[in-house]
């Protein structure tokens, strides 16, 4: 045990060349990067608040901001069985109300927008929110979007290391759809933030299978359900995963001890998630089962109606849905596409350039599969991967109409996979000695970006790997020389 200190599992960028010097300054990327990503994402989101195109759906979320203040009267008129309460679960509305109150506004906003009539009729009848209210709602989501980027960073750092986390956070922060939706007053950014938090909690649960972590995961899925319904279905799939773990443990196919502690906790997820979902919405209280079904049924019927009303964006089957995802996230909303177009725009007239976010995502699937294969089904990577695949699967299978906002959870998945793929590629190159080209500044080693847990800050292997008798200060260059 001696020789290992907690600091050895944390990664640092060394500024001083002398590792023994007490004057050395250690900047921990694990602390600095999320702060930088938060600032970057928030700045980008806020800069788009005034310019992002208005969407009539925003009026609905602004209208229901009064849900937040009406929680003080949970048996009042607001929570009766009616179209509006059946139309959407409440958490996005609570968020809008909270955002308005925190920004010094009240929750009495605009009338309900009637999609049967045009903009002028709705404007005339008070269904258009005031500019101040709308911008306050949008700013709320700008913060939520930036928080999501940070959560993505922490999640990917937990399963794939710092380089993967930085890449994933950066892609998410710069993603045009993320910026677009984080500067509109809708509920999708909140939904994605809750999914990201659930992923992070899933990893925590696999490391510490405690009742508190299990409750936390279930509560997050319940709150996700109270935002967009679909995470409630994920809670059931997690319960199935728990049962599968127990069966596999019985036959000795997985880490038995871990599976036996994790399985029952996963089996509790539906009960916790549904309990949270019901508690969060006073409308459900008088008849929880029937009214919950009302919500699911109305969403399904509305989607069918939308599919009929807008045949141009209707989706007939999951294969077509995948095609839509490709189109949206390659040609319309792509970080890499945007960056390339900007660069090309410096030299010639603007052109549409193929974005290759999805190519990285596919490589990321390989990286994630390898993580799961190596670590086993009881690992955080496996559980979170299962959760993420479930969420994307629900969207692809359930997509009847291709609205841009439905793709945001897929952007979350793409960002995570992008991070893993960058890490995989980096290490593949690093193992072949390519890293030496990056070590430009003497004493500053990008080796420190290696995932935590494998190596000490100096690049030396810990007890889990081979020993490496190199001087700490030379760690980065040593690998370079070895490569050459």
């Amino acid at each position, binding site marked *: 045990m001696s020789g290992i200190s907690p600091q050895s599992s944390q990664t640092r960028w060394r500024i001083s060349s002398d590792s023994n010097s007490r004057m050395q300054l250690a900047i921990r990327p694990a602390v600095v990067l999320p702060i930088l990503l938060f600032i970057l994402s928030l700045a980008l989101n806020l800069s788009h608040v005034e310019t992002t195109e208005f969407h009539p759906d925003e009026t609905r979320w602004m209208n229901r901001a009064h849900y937040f203040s009406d929680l003080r009267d949970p048996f009042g008129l607001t929570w009766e069985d009616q179209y509006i309460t059946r139309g959407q679960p409440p958490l996005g509305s609570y968020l809008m109300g909270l955002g308005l109150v925190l920004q010094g506004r009240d929750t009495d906003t605009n009338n309900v927008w009637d999609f049967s009539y045009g903009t002028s009729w709705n404007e005339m009848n008070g269904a258009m929110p005031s500019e101040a209210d709308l911008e306050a709602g949008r700013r709320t989501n700008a913060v939520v979007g930036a928080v999501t980027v940070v959560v993505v960073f922490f999640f990917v750092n937990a399963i794939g290391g710092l380089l993967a986390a930085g890449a994933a956070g950066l892609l998410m922060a710069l993603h045009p759809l993320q910026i677009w939706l984080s500067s509109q007053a809708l509920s999708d950014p909140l939904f994605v933030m809750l999914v990201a938090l659930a992923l992070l909690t899933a990893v925590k649960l696999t490391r510490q299978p405690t009742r508190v972590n299990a409750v936390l995961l279930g509560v997050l899925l319940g709150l996700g359900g109270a935002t967009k319904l679909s995470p409630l279905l994920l809670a059931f799939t997690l319960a199935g995963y728990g049962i599968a773990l127990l069966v596999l443990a019985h036959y000795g196919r997985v880490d038995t001890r871990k599976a036996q502690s994790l399985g029952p906790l996963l089996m509790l997820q539906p009960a916790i998630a549904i309990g949270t979902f019901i508690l969060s919405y006073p409308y459900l209280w008088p008849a929880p089962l029937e009214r919950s079904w009302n919500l699911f049924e109305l969403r399904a019927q509305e989607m069918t109606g939308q599919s009929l009303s807008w045949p141009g964006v209707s989706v007939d089957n999951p294969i077509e849905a995948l095609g839509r995802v490709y189109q949206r996230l390659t040609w319309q909303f792509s970080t890499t596409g945007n960056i390339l177009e900007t660069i090309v725009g410096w030299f010639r007239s603007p052109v549409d350039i193929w974005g290759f976010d999805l190519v990285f995502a596919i490589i990321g699937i390989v990286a994630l599969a390898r993580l799961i294969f190596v670590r086993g089904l009881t*690992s955080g990577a496996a559980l979170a991967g299962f959760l993420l695949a479930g969420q994307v699967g629900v969207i692809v299978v359930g997509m009847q109409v291709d609205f841009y906002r439905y793709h945001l959870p897929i952007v979350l998945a793409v960002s995570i996979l992008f991070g893993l793929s960058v890490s995989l590629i980096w290490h593949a190159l690093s193992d072949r000695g390519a890293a030496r080209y990056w070590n430009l500044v003497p004493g500053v080693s990008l080796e420190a970006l290696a995932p935590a847990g494998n190596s000490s800050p100096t690049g030396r292997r810990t007890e889990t790997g081979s020993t490496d008798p190199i001087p700490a200060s030379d760690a980065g260059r040593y690998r370079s020389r070895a490569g050459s």
Partner: protein
Amino acid sequence: MKTRALRWLIGVLAAVVVSLAAFQAFGSFTDNHDAWDLFAPVSVESEPVTIKPARLFSSGQQTSINEVVNETRGFGVPWSVYVTTDEVENRDGPIDTWAEQVYDEAPVETAPGARDGLLLFVAVPVDDHTQTHAEFVAGEQFFPRQGITPETLERIVNEQMAPMIEDNKIGQAIIEGTTWLEWSQLFQSTPNQPHTYLQSGLDPLLHPFLTIAMVGLAGAVALVAIGILWETWRGSIGVAQGEFEVASAAAAAIGRVNDAVIVALQLPTAERVHEPADTTMTPVTETRPQSDPRAIRRILEDQLAANGVFHPRSVLYTLWLRALAGFALAAGLLGIVLSILGESEPTLFASIAAVAISLVALIWNESRSWTTNAGRQRLRDWKALHADAQDDAWVQFDAIVHADHYRADLGSPLSRSWNPSAGA
């Protein structure tokens, strides 16, 4: 082995049967369910729109009015619009009586005698359209009808239609009125239903009795938790004494004897063949070396309590608080259900408070530090003596306290040298 396999088989079969039964029950519930049932279309025999004379409005206006009325019938409102100019100026008596007569002569209803329809009656004087009178007449069984209430109807006439009538835009006023009626049906809040017999019976029981009980429980849990916190922090012994080795220091820092402390205690035993370790624990009550982790935990806890590092009643306090908070949690959950059934707000909020405080207390209780103030002082002294990165005791202490950092799946296996066996 055969018995075990049989149990598994029975268990799986039972799960399949229960799942199928649940699926069947849920399926029968959902098969005929329509979330739009609130707004199920209604069939009404009377004409949707009657305009006398028809040339009063443009054909575009007539079409619009017809469309909105039919659409609203599709959302579950049995209603019609009746517009007339017949001798409006020369008619005796109030116009609302006339409107009721029109309704009685040709009732708007979903079945003969149902009296569940609504009529928008509009009387337009020929010589001055700005004196037009609009009136809603509802059958006795029309209300409740989602968002449409008598107040809504009054507001539509007075606030939406009247200004347009004053501007001599009669056709536009009717379109506006019919549109708002449809909007109210869909989007206006439905009035609260009257209390049921159960709710009326529960109400006096819930408030104030259950409310006071819940507030009392929440307060009791909070007070006991604060009391335990204070008592533990103060400690019962002024100065912690006795042996204070690495494991003791780590336990004091963590506040408990956790798995990492026990593993650390056992490791030197395994290494003793090569090198005697100074962290071997001398049990207070046992003479033989212990291998049962629970026993080791108890022995070390007793030792630390005897030395004044842990509060001597920590285990007892933990059990007490667990029981009290567990009871308050269960009672609070029951209170939530009862207060929802009885629609009692004060009881609901008191029950939520009881649940929230109990949950926080339970979570805190399971991980709270048992270390006394004297124990903390002892730990500070120990740290001052050993706080050096080169000191083996310090390194070992740090490793125990931050054992979570060494979990195998923290790192990334993307590089080739990652050791998968560490993750097992």
